[in-house]
């Protein structure tokens, strides 16, 4: 309730409720077809992943280049547990917890590193995990027959919708709490935060837990949605690059940035994948570079600037010119 009270802007609240209602009702009322449901589910999974990345990179300033490891651990654990008969939602939760457990191991040594060094460290960890998975599980793992009995795309869609809503609520909770402020203080100046009595390591570790848990959940949801998993595939660096790009396009350190970014990214992937096929990674790479060069604060910043420009443009046209000629 406290959370909702802080949800100050009526407009934002109305919009969020309207979008949520639309997302829930549309698939129930209309038959959207497999294609649209697939794309929207992927979009939702991307929101979870890029929001998880954003909490870490955007708010706390810790650029994690190993997100794929947590996503992969979540997907893999889900798959293992589900195939021995655990209910899917428990398997998903445990997948998330497994990812958190991984962050307990990886966090303490890597979080001591600053700036780009942290990126290097996490990237190395993820790559080596991918290497190990490639050795241990080279084969595709099929889901048990019971899975196909309960699976439907609509179900996958609703599961990912629930996970996405929970992610957004978690992110909102983190950002609007003391933790969020502390994280931003650490991002802006770690030494200053440290000298005003904040222990950066502690809070960085905390946000790392949350972020890796969310990424693990995303892995579980993805595992349910795909059914058939090649374990090493989920550890691939492309699962880091995608959410990272989505968060960058949308704007780091903003709550809605990952949502807009994921929207743009997934649509871009669909269009490019359809028309240019293999070359679409090349074009997304170029777009990513251009965004970093020319729009480092993403769409969110662009939105703010447009609004500011509109605001300043309107009164200027109305007020008479002072001190006439």
């Amino acid at each position, binding site marked *: 309730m406290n959370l909702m009270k802080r949800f100050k802007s009526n407009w934002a609240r109305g919009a969020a409720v309207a979008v949520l209602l639309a997302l829930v009702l549309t698939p129930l009322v209309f038959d959207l077809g497999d294609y649209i449901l697939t794309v929207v589910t992927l979009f939702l999974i991307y929101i979870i992943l890029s929001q998880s990345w954003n909490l870490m990179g955007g708010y706390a300033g810790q650029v994690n280049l190993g997100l794929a490891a947590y996503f992969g651990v979540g997907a893999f654990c889900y798959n293992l547990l589900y195939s021995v008969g655990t209910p899917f939602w428990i398997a998903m939760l445990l997948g998330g917890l497994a990812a958190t457990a991984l962050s307990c191991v990886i966090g303490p040594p*890597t979080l001591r590193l600053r700036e780009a060094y942290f990126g290097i460290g996490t990237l190395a960890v993820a790559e080596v995990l991918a290497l190990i998975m490639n050795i241990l599980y080279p084969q595709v793992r099929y889901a048990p027959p019971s899975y196909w009995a309960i699976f439907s795309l609509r179900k996958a869609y609703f599961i990912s919708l629930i996970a996405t809503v929970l992610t957004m609520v978690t992110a909102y909770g983190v950002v609007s709490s003391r933790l969020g402020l502390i994280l931003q203080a650490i991002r802006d100046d770690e030494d200053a935060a440290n000298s005003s009595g904040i222990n950066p390591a502690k809070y960085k570790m905390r946000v790392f837990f949350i972020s890796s848990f969310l990424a693990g959940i995303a892995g579980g949801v993805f595992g349910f949605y795909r059914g058939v998993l090649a374990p090493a595939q989920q550890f691939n660096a492309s699962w880091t690059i995608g959410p990272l790009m989505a968060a960058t396009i949308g704007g780091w350190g903003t709550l809605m940035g990952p949502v807009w970014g994921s929207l743009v990214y997934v649509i871009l992937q669909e269009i490019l994948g359809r028309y240019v096929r293999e070359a679409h990674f090349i074009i997304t790479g170029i777009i990513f570079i251009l965004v970093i060069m020319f729009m480092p604060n993403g769409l969110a910043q662009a939105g703010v600037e447009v609004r500011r420009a509109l605001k300043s443009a309107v009164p200027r046209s109305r007020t008479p010119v002072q001190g006439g000629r």
Partner: protein
Amino acid sequence: MFAQALAYGIILGIFYGLVTIGLALLFGVMKYLNLAHGSFMMLGGYICFWMFALWGVDPMLSIPVVMIAGFVLGLLLYQLLFKSLSKVPEGRRMNSSMLMTFGLLMVLDNTAIALWHTDIRTVNTSYSGRMIDLIGAKVPLTGVMVTMIAVLVIIALHLFLYGTYLGKSIRATAQDWEAANLVGVNINFTYLICCGISIALAGVAGTGIVIVYSLSPDVGLRWVLFAMVVLVLAGMGNIKEVFLAGLIMGVLEQLSAVFLGGQFRGVASLAIFVLILVLRPEGLFRR
């Protein structure tokens, strides 16, 4: 067995040194982290491969061509991408360049896949399979040749950095770019040349890799990661330290491959990496 592993480890270590020095030059002097360094290396390897496959040019002779091509690519890299970052503070410069080159890595790797497919390539010259005896160990001739070339390149780089005016200005810029700017060093030009040399070194490493090991479009990221492990091990020191760290890394990796089995050599490198992070984090930040 031990001597054999040691010999292979030294060759691998020289490669690590070669790849890392290019990376360290950009990192040390410009505070730019180039994740696409391995991809440039891969491009260099492909140039060598195609020159051999199409025109039968001996890979040793194609090294100068690859170096020039790499130098030009490096100039382009600076002019198109890195120049926009040359005025931002060092911390952000590192992060932005890391992200930018993450995108670049994607572009280069996928371009290579689109053009040349994912086949694994090697260069098979008349002397490729030949082995020579070195104090109890059989070593491939190509490995020895590439090692000698690598050593020559490193010596040349050392002479350039410590013997010429431009090299002096590069070292000055590495220490403090603002002060260097004040005493009249052209920072932009220094950065430009540095970038060119770095990518040219990546090209040489790529040539070596296609001759001694094998090449496919996705080798870049793995090599650049190992190079970064070496960079961490060296603690961002000078050329000699980087080279020594590369040797240690290569020998350790080969020995661990002997004792643990070849598949797990990457895992051993990670263990080393994490150990250094835990035990000697100052190795990272020492100047």
